[in-house]
């Protein structure tokens, strides 16, 4: 039976796991199903988790496998994350560089899943290249090239000049 400590650590990872699920599936309702199923799977397989290794990486692996085996075919049909995110959040950098979060999300969802997941694992969740490679079942070189392609694509879609120049929302916000 899982220990109290395992339970606590699992609870501590739920929001992170859900953030990964939403970003991977593009759908909040799919993400919630995914998280729930992953949680049950992790719970019933708790003895397979090696203490001292990353619980986050272990949970991501479970969820990712579920997504690609059972959920992926539905993902494109249900893009329902609108209304879930905070609205019109601006990511501020230095004075000249602002990026509208909604604009970022719009282009983020245009990336293939293999690029979104690498961005989330490394750029957002703080996992190492090695952990990401294990989770995605590819070599570190593949992880690095996916990451690089993902970043280049985002820069291309958002516009290099906009990212480093004037606020992007001024350009994109529609005049009505």
């Amino acid at each position, binding site marked *: 039976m899982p220990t109290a400590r395992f339970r606590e650590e699992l609870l501590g990872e739920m929001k992170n796991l859900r953030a990964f699920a939403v970003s991977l599936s593009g759908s909040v309702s799919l993400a919630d199903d995914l998280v729930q199923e992953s949680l049950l799977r992790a719970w019933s397989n708790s003895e397979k988790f090696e203490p001292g290794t990353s619980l986050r990486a272990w949970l991501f692996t479970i969820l990712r496998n579920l997504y690609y085996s059972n959920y992926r075919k539905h993902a494109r049909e249900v893009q329902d994350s609108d209304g*879930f995110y905070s609205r019109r959040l601006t990511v501020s950098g230095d004075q000249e560089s602002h990026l509208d979060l909604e604009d970022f999300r719009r282009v983020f969802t245009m990336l293939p899943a293999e690029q979104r997941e690498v961005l989330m694992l490394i750029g957002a969740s703080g996992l190492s290249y090695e952990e990401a490679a294990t989770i995605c079942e590819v070599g570190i070189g593949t992880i690095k090239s996916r990451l690089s392609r993902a970043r280049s694509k985002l820069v291309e879609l958002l516009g290099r000049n906009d990212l480093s120049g004037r606020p992007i929302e001024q350009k994109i916000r529609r005049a009505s």
Partner: protein
Amino acid sequence: MNAIRKKANAAPDVAALDRKALEAIGRALKAHHADLVQAPLPEKLVELLARLKVGDSASEPQGSGDANG
């Protein structure tokens, strides 16, 4: 502002643009993640978590070698 306009009119330094663009994307990604993580968990998940029963207070995992008495 004048400085910014002047800069925009000058020939762009591609390497610097790339670096700034990548930094902007890194920040956006972290903001996207932070925004997702701060969202409350859905009710059905909270209920499920509450139902998960753990082993009794003698809760050291079997054979983990992590006994602390």
